[in-house]
């Protein structure tokens, strides 16, 4: 039994599996200790979130969003030591992203409408709230089997067709819809009734 556990621990884990196992606080502690695999995992865990805040809540054009994205991770890397509570890394990253998006919008508006007092549009607060929920759903998704995680992510987040998913996962295209349905039910079970918005 000990040998089996050692073998499991020694076996290489996929970034998604590693990401699902580690709490935010543990991940931050590993990054602070110079663990580069942990840093990659942190980037993977928060990259979609940062990207979505910049492009959906602030509607930044792609070039500006890329600049913000790189600046966010550069600052996170540089300033991880200043984070007071490791488990608060998600709100910290969100706040950093929002601040850099606002700076970017202000800089853009100064260039474009230098002769007016108009302020740039702020973030869409509804979208920001929905992105928090979406992050929690993706957290739950990461705890499902690799098959379910992959098929739901490909269909809903990557917008792949049944055919593309079938080709990538070597599944008959005719079975994709039923698998998606089954995996959505598993995801809902994973989240559980206590997390549903009406029960909050």
């Amino acid at each position: 039994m000990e040998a089996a556990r050692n073998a499991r621990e020694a076996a290489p884990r996929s970034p998604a599996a590693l990401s699902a196992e580690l709490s935010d606080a543990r991940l931050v502690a590993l990054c602070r200790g110079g663990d580069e695999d942990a840093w990659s995992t942190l980037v993977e865990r928060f990259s979609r979130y940062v990207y979505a805040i910049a492009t959906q809540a602030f509607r930044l054009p792609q070039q500006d969003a890329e600049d913000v994205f790189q600046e966010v991770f550069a600052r996170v890397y540089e300033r991880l030591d200043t984070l007071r509570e490791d488990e608060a890394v998600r709100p910290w990253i969100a706040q950093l992203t929002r601040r850099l998006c606002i700076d970017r919008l202000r800089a853009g508006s100064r260039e474009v409408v230098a002769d007016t007092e108009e302020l740039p549009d702020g973030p869409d607060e509804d979208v920001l709230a929905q992105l928090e929920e979406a992050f929690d759903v993706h957290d739950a998704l990461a705890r499902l089997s690799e098959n379910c995680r992959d098929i739901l992510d490909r269909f809903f987040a990557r917008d792949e067709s049944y055919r593309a998913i079938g080709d990538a996962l070597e599944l008959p295209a005719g079975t994709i819809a039923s698998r998606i349905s089954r995996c959505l039910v598993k995801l809902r079970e994973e989240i559980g009734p206590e997390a549903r918005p009406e029960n909050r």
Partner: protein
Amino acid sequence: MSGYDIERLSRLIGMLPPAPAAWTRAARELPRARRELDGIVERAEADAEFRRALIADLENALRAEGVEPTTWPLLDELRRRVL
């Protein structure tokens, strides 16, 4: 059904598409880029000829060091520290 019904779950999954692969790659490579930056700055401080090469043509001097400037995430910081 309200709350996390299937339709709502589907929509929430779709709200977090992957960031472009090149962006995440650059962010993942920050630790290595940071080491490269520190090495370049240290060498520029110790080697006047290397420093002159950086000032004359930063991007080509980086390429000569095996660093591709167009995808390197710390180019602006290097400019600030060396130029």
